[in-house]
């Protein structure tokens, strides 16, 4: 067996049918001439035979029917719609395309937000104005908010007495709002 340690692995491969024709022939010639390797072959064949026997006898006791039934159930099972949708998506949008779609969607969303903001600015034409402070220096002031047109009106009632510039003009009454 001296110098034959590396042959043991080859014998295992040979028993598993994993050696080529030339390698098998070379190994067979060696085992015919080498008592150690021949003995190793015999032991490995016996081990393999024992293991096969045990596995076969145990396998006969195992009930495989539930397993096959479960397999059949899985095969016949109707796939949920989202699985089909995902498969369809994978077909239409492979990973390389999806990598572009994600930023494109982000850009579109941001564009939508910007457009909405711009639109709000335009629509602000009719948005209510809010009066934060007002000082009419003692004159009367009316504040009107008209909801239909969203109009804010500050109306200054000018007192004619002492108002030189107004005294020259006829004083109209205030609006009827």
């Amino acid at each position: 067996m001296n110098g034959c340690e590396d042959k043991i692995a080859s014998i295992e491969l040979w028993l598993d049918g994993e050696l080529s024709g030339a390698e098998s022939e070379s190994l067979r010639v060696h085992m015919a001439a080498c008592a150690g390797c021949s003995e190793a072959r015999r032991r490995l064949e016996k081990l393999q035979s024992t293991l096969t026997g045990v596995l076969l006898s145990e396998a006969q006791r195992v009930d495989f029917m539930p397993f096959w039934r479960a397999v059949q159930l899985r095969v016949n099972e109707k796939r949920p719609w989202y699985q089909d949708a995902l498969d369809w998506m994978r077909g239409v949008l492979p990973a390389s395309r999806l990598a572009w779609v994600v930023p494109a969607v982000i850009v579109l969303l941001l564009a939508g937000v910007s457009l909405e903001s711009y639109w709000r600015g335009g629509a602000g034409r009719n948005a209510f104005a809010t009066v934060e402070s007002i000082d009419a220096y003692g004159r009367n002031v009316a504040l009107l908010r008209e909801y239909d047109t969203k109009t804010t009106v500050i109306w200054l009632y000018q007192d004619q007495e002492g108002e030189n510039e107004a005294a020259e003009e006829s004083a109209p009454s205030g609006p009827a709002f």
Partner: protein
Amino acid sequence: MKLLKKAPLRVLLFSLLSMLAVAVTGTAQKQPQNVEVRIRAILASNQSDEFDASLKGLEKQLRVLKYRSYRLLNDESQNIPRNGNKVFEIPGGRSLMVAPQEFQDNRIALLVRLTGGQKPLLDTTVRIANKGNFILGGPPHEGGVLVLSISAAMQ
């Protein structure tokens, strides 16, 4: 540059640039440098049923005041820098000083001061939507009353 030929890296770069552009644009929108203020001086009276065609865009708002006649006397726009102010000449020897105060949530706070000759008539601070307006009226003028439409738009 060889790295840029790889799609994922290009996508990442594209995304980062997009986000940067949006961030810069957003910041710029929040910090306008100028405000365009437009003052339309209108004579409202009950002397006729005339409605000036150039006031078509303001018709619904003006009808709130219940006068029969509306005529545009003056239409003036000025760009007012941030933290600055401008004076508008108003018919009847009056003037209107407008100073943008603050920009927040797409709205502009305007300080408005109406004076007649040297006398202050009204001081008010009004917050209006960007491109929005409000009406200031009441001073008598030529047998009617003066109505001012004050609008502002961020630049």
